[in-house]
């Protein structure tokens, strides 16, 4: 469970880590939008190179990206199977009995695989280099303009930061409960249906109980310190955009423009 890599912050010191979270979030959004333009293989190659450069500057390893990608592989295999039965366009590549595999099925799947890989790369660039707390500060600031139309920016940010804060705790808690129940003879890997339902139940009930307990404790602790959601508040950490943040944004915008051009105007 501790091996979940998707969305995990990696505490390193790099120029990317030191950037303003707002710039990083905006840049990520721009590039994510860019991925969805049908810019062809050349477009994806450009994004791949750009994302790789960011990963290298951030001193992240590619094996880390690969591990984040792994859980998606099952989905891709599934997709490939479906595609190979449904997509009957393009050139026939392979025939086994009455089943023929067409090139479009392969390319469609590959296309989605590449997009997925790029998305994982881009989002990992953000999540692995931004402390969850900085991320919520960034989100809060970015949502500020929408407060005029009654979007509760601060509350949303607080919600997200609390949710993020509890993820590692709940993972630890789950591991602890698994171990505790395994010590009582629970076998999570095999057994009859009834035994397995019992095994799952023996995890879920304590997990819920402790999650609610934690939520209540946190709410009490916040109230005890005078937290009131609507209040105007100042910040200990004030975000400030610097030169390199504008460079990143400009780069992301250029990438998006490039994809649009590749997709529609070439």
């Amino acid at each position: 469970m501790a091996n979940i890599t998707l969305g995990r912050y990696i505490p390193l010191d790099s120029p990317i880590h030191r950037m303003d979270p707002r710039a990083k979030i905006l840049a990520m959004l721009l590039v994510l939008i860019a991925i969805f333009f049908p810019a062809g293989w050349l477009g994806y190659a450009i994004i791949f190179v750009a994302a790789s450069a960011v990963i290298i500057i951030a001193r992240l390893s590619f094996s880390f990206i690969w591990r984040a990608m792994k859980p998606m592989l099952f989905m891709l295999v599934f997709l490939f199977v479906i595609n190979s039965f449904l997509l009957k366009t393009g050139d026939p590549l392979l025939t086994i009995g009455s089943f023929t595999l067409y090139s479009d099925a392969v390319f469609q799947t590959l296309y989605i695989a590449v997009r997925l890989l790029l998305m994982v790369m881009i989002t990992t660039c953000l999540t692995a280099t931004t402390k969850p707390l900085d991320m919520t500060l960034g989100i809060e600031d970015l949502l500020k303009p929408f407060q005029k139309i009654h979007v509760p920016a601060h509350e949303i940010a607080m919600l997200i930061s609390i949710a993020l804060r509890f993820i590692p705790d709940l993972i630890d808690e789950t591991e602890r409960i698994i171990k505790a129940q395994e010590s009582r003879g629970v076998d999570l890997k095999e057994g009859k249906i009834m035994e397995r339902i019992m095994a799952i139940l023996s995890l879920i009930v304590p997990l819920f109980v402790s999650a609610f307990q934690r939520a209540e404790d946190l709410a009490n602790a916040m109230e005890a310190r005078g937290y009131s959601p609507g209040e105007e508040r100042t910040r200990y950490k004030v975000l400030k955009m610097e030169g390199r943040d504008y460079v990143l944004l400009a780069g992301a915008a250029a990438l998006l423009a490039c994809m649009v051009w590749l997709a529609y105007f070439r």
Partner: protein
Amino acid sequence: MPISFEHVSYIYSKGTPYEYTALKDVCLDIEEGKITAIIGQTGSGKSTLVQHLNALLLPEEGTVHILDRAITASEKPKQLKSLRGDVGLVFQFPEYQLFEETVLKDVAFGPKNFGASEEEAKKRAIHALELVGLSDKYCERSPLELSGGQKRRVAIAGILAMDPKVLVLDEPTAGLDPKGTEAMMTLFHDLNRKHGKTVLIVTHDMEQVFRYCDNVVVMEDGKVRTHTNVESFFRDPAACRDMNILPPALIRMKEMLKENGFDIPEDVLSTAALADCIARQVKNHG
């Protein structure tokens, strides 16, 4: 056949940036039929060590021998189930493992998993609840509505009902009131003395080590720093302090008396004996 660790190492999150070596080449023999305390600072590897005893963690390197079984990196989980029944492990704050509708069902959950019949499991559950001092009026209550101390007892009963040969307790009295602590420690002492169970207790409380345990293992930075019997361990308070361990009150009292010119023999190890000793010397002096 003692419980033994042979060159055991354990690494958490191996191959990730979070890699952390919790045990480093640990060699340790734990006597059967005794109460052994495992002490050491937070992060010294105590909890990691005890989780090897019922193979929740498999050693990265080395072998753990326990109850005629050898646990190595490649031990398959299938052979482990009977081990888990024989080595009862009580985690820190075990009350979080309660989940059944009634106390009785929860305590009977363990024995049933290890193949006891419904009847047998219930019988053992009632017996275990008696041991931890909960009468049968608690049997039909929901474990979730009990007080913290009672939940703890139910959780410990859940392990005792499995009737393990080796009982491993990770800070079993943390957060209990003094009376509850006393009752728990007396129970573990009885289980050892009357029922011959091997007991291992992870603890931070030196008074408990001093009063209830036979042997003591000091963990430090993933290694065994000291392993000796409790009596000789506290004979040298300076060495204890050197390991950041505050000796129990009685030992500190003896120390202070000695500094002030009293002659206290080494074998004075109870409050009553110490009081006698002081009284005798004061009388002789006057």
